[in-house]
């Protein structure tokens, strides 16, 4: 354990965020079991008031959780490598926690996804005075809870596990992953070229679906947004793989340095922040473009707002995808024009 102020801030932020979410969850349980919108009895009126408080509490919790996640990433990428012996980037820090913080980050992103979904539903819900999605959304709020607990526990375990005395290999180990040069040029036995072409074809398909979702005049637009969500789910891991295995080389200007965390270092101009930031936006907005419309399917009054949110999601996804592809493609094209060859 290292008592670094940033890690203490993460712990405090997580605890505060969890407490706020637990408070909102207590009300959510009452909403799921006792919500009777037709009744004007005292119990229902009190529950309606508590629902507003819980909504604020959960929103604040989401904001704090987002902040503590950002602090954790800053700690992993740019602060702890100077403290953990042998660590040059986030890879070394994760090794010093036996991979626990890596797992924590994965769970945290999943929690953040469901929280964002909750927030989207909440905005839809509040677009109508009678708030028809209240019980539905209370269930989503409750769904977050076990994953939230898991994320916080794994994060704390990871922070406690950081060993500042035991040296780590850091990303030098990525070279040991491959027995030969040929092995470094393939992923799961499939050549990198295949993954690159797949990435670009899926990108074209995803952008087309985003435009389709933006332009569709149908009231629901479930087909367009459904296709966009499915392609996004396939596109994101392939984009991440090609980034780390192929395009990162143009930032590092070194062959086969398959480390995602080095992209967050100052010597690479923190390029990992916009790149992975774009991936996160796409991961969130793709499914949300569909789920927003899907949730409103049973409530015709909500559909116009749901469609607007869905279009906004498609627009954000489109812009993030264009930004992302520009950021990965331009250095590669520049390199090709300068030296006449592709790296790797």
């Amino acid at each position, binding site marked *: 354990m290292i008592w670094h102020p940033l890690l203490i801030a993460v712990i405090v932020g997580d605890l505060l965020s969890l407490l706020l979410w637990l408070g909102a969850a207590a009300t959510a349980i009452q909403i799921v079991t006792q919500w009777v919108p037709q009744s*004007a009895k005292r119990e229902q009126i*009190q529950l309606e008031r508590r629902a507003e408080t819980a909504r604020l509490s959960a929103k604040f919790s989401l904001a704090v959780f987002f902040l503590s996640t950002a602090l954790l990433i800053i700690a992993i990428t740019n602060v702890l490598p100077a403290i953990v012996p042998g660590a040059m980037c986030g890879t070394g820090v994760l090794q010093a926690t036996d991979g626990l913080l890596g797992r924590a980050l994965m769970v945290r992103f999943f929690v953040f996804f469901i929280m964002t979904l909750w927030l989207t539903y909440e905005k839809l819900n509040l677009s109508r*005075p*009678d708030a028809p999605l209240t019980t539905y959304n209370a269930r989503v709020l409750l769904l977050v809870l076990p994953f939230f607990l898991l994320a916080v526990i794994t994060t704390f375990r990871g922070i406690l596990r950081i060993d500042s005395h035991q040296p780590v290999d850091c990303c030098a180990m990525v070279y040991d992953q491959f027995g030969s040069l040929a092995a470094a040029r393939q992923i799961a036995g499939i050549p990198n070229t295949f993954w690159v072409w797949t990435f670009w074809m899926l990108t074209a398909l995803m952008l087309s679906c985003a435009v389709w979702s933006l332009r569709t005049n149908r009231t629901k637009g479930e087909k367009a947004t459904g296709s966009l969500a499915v392609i996004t789910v396939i596109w994101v891991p392939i984009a991440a793989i090609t980034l780390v295995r192929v395009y990162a080389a143009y930032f590092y200007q070194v062959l086969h340095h398959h480390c995602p965390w080095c992209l967050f270092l100052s010597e690479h101009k923190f390029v990992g922040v916009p790149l992975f930031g774009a991936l996160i936006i796409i991961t969130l907005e793709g499914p949300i473009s569909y789920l927003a419309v899907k949730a409103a399917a049973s409530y015709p009054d909500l559909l116009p707002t749901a469609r607007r949110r869905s279009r906004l999601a498609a627009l954000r996804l489109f812009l993030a995808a264009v930004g992302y592809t520009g950021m990965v493609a331009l250095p590669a094209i520049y390199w090709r024009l300068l030296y006449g060859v592709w790296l790797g």
Partner: protein
Amino acid sequence: MSLSLVCQNVSLYRRRADGSERAILKHVDATLNAGEGAMISGKTGAGKSTLLQLLAGLLRPSQGQITANGQPVSRWNTVHRDIWRRQVGIVFQHPHLIDEFTVLENVILPLIPRGTSLTQLRELAWQALDTFGISHLAKQKVLSLSGGEQQRVSIARAIVSRPAILIADEPTAHQDDDGTALIIEKFAGWKLPHTIVIVAAHDPRWTQYGKFADRHFLLENGRLRELQ
């Protein structure tokens, strides 16, 4: 649809310092329709101001609901209640004017979020000031006004946005006889086919002048009953 404002079994409880509850309003039922002027009277502390704040959407009942055109506005979430409240003009017991602003600026204030042009804003504000005979005070800071003048400014501010529901709490408390007569006359004139006017007052002249109060309610011990 014609405007209606309905209290359905509305109660309001407040917690005392010792933790026990006190009922400020108990099972209030009332229906007000467009074109009506309603007067609510009762002793000091009877809950008149509280009832007005409930009707204006500033407070929420502990039990029951208030509906406007059949919609349970008292139970709407804050966003929608705030939008609905734009239809309500409120005259508070205390004027609540901004001391640093002139009379005209104070009256213009409620119009600003409505996106009207500045010329139109000024025109509406001048009309409201004219209605209550205080247009000659327009450029003065409110601090230099008397209590009665400040009260008229606050009434002008309440009507400047042409609200569908006008709610006033003791609007003639600081007026002389002429001022009271003018305000009662103007309130009576505000009863249009699409408006509801509700006034809480001690002053017996509101009923004596006979033009304003179509309905007269008495609030006693938290219970509301209509006087015939």
